C-alpha cells in the first residue's frame, strides 16, 4: 500500500493520530501532525512511497506541532519533534513542510552511523551512481533535478548513504529540494513534474520540493555501485568544462562532506578510498543545463 492508495481523509486521520508509518529507503518513520500544509505536502510529494499499517517498529518517531501560547494567534509557528524532543528552534508555520524535510534529514544524519553519510546528491544510470558533493550555491540541486527529470534515477538530492561493508549506495529518494531561481528553472523546463508549495524567507531563501519520479521511488530498495564523483559548479556565461579531478583531492573533499567520517573512523577512510579508486573523478563547470546533461549522459565507466 502506498500513500496514493489512501484517500485524503484517511491520510489526514493517520497523520493526526500519529500512525502513518512511511517507508523511505532503508527507514520507516512514524509521523504525527495535524498541520494541513504538511499533510498536503506528503499527499502530493510522497504519493509513491509505501505505508505500513501499525508497523511494530519505527526507526524515527517524528511530529510537527504548533507550539502553544499567544504566538499561536498572531505569529503562528511550527516545531519539529523527534520522539517528543525538539532539536531545533521553531520556524514560521508557512515553513512547516520544509521543516519536515530538514527534520527527516536530521534523523538520518544523527542516527544512521551504520552507514557513511555524505552531504551530496546521488543519481544513477546503468547501475552506476553519480555522486555530486557540493557546497550550497554550486547548483547541485538544480543539476540533480534536471538529471532526474531527464532519465537518471534519483537516489537522493542531499544524502549519499554508503554501506561501508559493500561500498554500495543506498537510495533515499525523498523529494528534491529546490531553492530560489532553480524552482522556476525546473518548473519551466519540466512543466509536468509536480512541485510542492513554496516556503518563502527560510534560512535558505525560497524553498520548494519536487516530487521524485515514480520509477525512482519504486526501486528505492535497489542499491548502486559508485561510478563517478563530480564536483559541479554553475557559473553564468561559462563554457562547458568537464575536467578530471585529482583523486587525492577528491578523497579530501569527500571526507569534508561526510557527516559522520570521524564517527566511523578507519572503516570510513577505507570505504571512501575504495570509492575513489572505483570512480571517475571530475569537476564540471557549466552555464547551460542542456550542455551539461548531454555531456554527463556520455560519461563512461572508468576505473583507475
Amino acid at each position, binding site marked *: 500500500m502506498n500513500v496514493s492508495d489512501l484517500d485524503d481523509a484517511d491520510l489526514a486521520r493517520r497523520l493526526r493520530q500519529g500512525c502513518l508509518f512511511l517507508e523511505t529507503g532503508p527507514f520507516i518513520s512514524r509521523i504525527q501532525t495535524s498541520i494541513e500544509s504538511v499533510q498536503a505536502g506528503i499527499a502530493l510529494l510522497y504519493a509513491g512511497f509505501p505505508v505500513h499499517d501499525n508497523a511494530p517498529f519505527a526507526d524515527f518517531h517524528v511530529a510537527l506541532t504548533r507550539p502553544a501560547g499567544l504566538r499561536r494567534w498572531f505569529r503562528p509557528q511550527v516545531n519539529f519533534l523527534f520522539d517528543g524532543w525538539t532539536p531545533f528552534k521553531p520556524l514560521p508555520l508557512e515553513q512547516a513542510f520544509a521543516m519536515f524535510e530538514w527534520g527527516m534529514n536530521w534523523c538520518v544524519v544523527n542516527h544512521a552511523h551504520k552507514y557513511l553519510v555524505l552531504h551530496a546528491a546521488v543519481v544513477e544510470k546503468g547501475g552506476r551512481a553519480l555522486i555530486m558533493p557540493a557546497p550550497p550555491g554550486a547548483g547541485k540541486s538544480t543539476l540533480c533535478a534536471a538529471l532526474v527529470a531527464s532519465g537518471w534515477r534519483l537516489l537522493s538530492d542531499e544524502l549519499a548513504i554508503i554501506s561501508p561493508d559493500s561500498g554500495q549506495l543506498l537510495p533515499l529518494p525523498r523529494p528534491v529540494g529546490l531553492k530560489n531561481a532553480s524552482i522556476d528553472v525546473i518548473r519551466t523546463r519540466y512543466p509536468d513534474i509536480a512541485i510542492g508549495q513554496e516556503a518563502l524567507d527560510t534560512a535558505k531563501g525560497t524553498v520548494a520540493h519536487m516530487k521524485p519520479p515514480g520509477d525512482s521511488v519504486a526501486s528505492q530498495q535497489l542499491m548502486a555501485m559508485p561510478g563517478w564523483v563530480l564536483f559541479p559548479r554553475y557559473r553564468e556565461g561559462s563554457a562547458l568544462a568537464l575536467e578530471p579531478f*585529482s*583523486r*587525492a583531492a577528491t*578523497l579530501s573533499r569527500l571526507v569534508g562532506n561526510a557527516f559522520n567520517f570521524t564517527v566511523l*573512523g578507519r572503516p570510513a*577512510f577505507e570505504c571512501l*578510498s575504495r570509492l*575513489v579508486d572505483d570512480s571517475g573523478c571530475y569537476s564540471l563547470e557549466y552555464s547551460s543545463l542542456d550542455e551539461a546533461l548531454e555531456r554527463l549522459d556520455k560519461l563512461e565507466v572508468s576505473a583507475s
Partner: protein
Amino acid sequence: MRKTVWCVASDARLHWREWDGEVVLFHENSGNIHHLNLFAATAIRQLLEAPADSETLTERTASKLDLPVDDEARDGIEQLLTRLKTLGIARVAPS
C-alpha cells in the same frame, strides 16, 4: 647543545593512500585526514623509519627525492615538523 631529535608519536595510527604522487594521510587517533604533497609524505615516511633531527631528516628526504639540500628544503622540514607536533603526529624523541 644537543640537536632536537624528532620521531613519529609511538601511538600514532597512520593510514596512507597515494594517487599520482599525492598522498592522503589518515591519522586515526585524531580522526583527521591530511592531503600531502610528495615531499611532506616522504619526510613523514623517513621519520617513521628512524627518528632524526631536522638537518638529518632534510638530507634523507632530499636524497630520496633527488632534491638539493638547500634552504627551501630545510624550511620545508622545519615547518612540517612544527605542524606535525601541533597535530600530535610527531614528538620530540625521548633522550
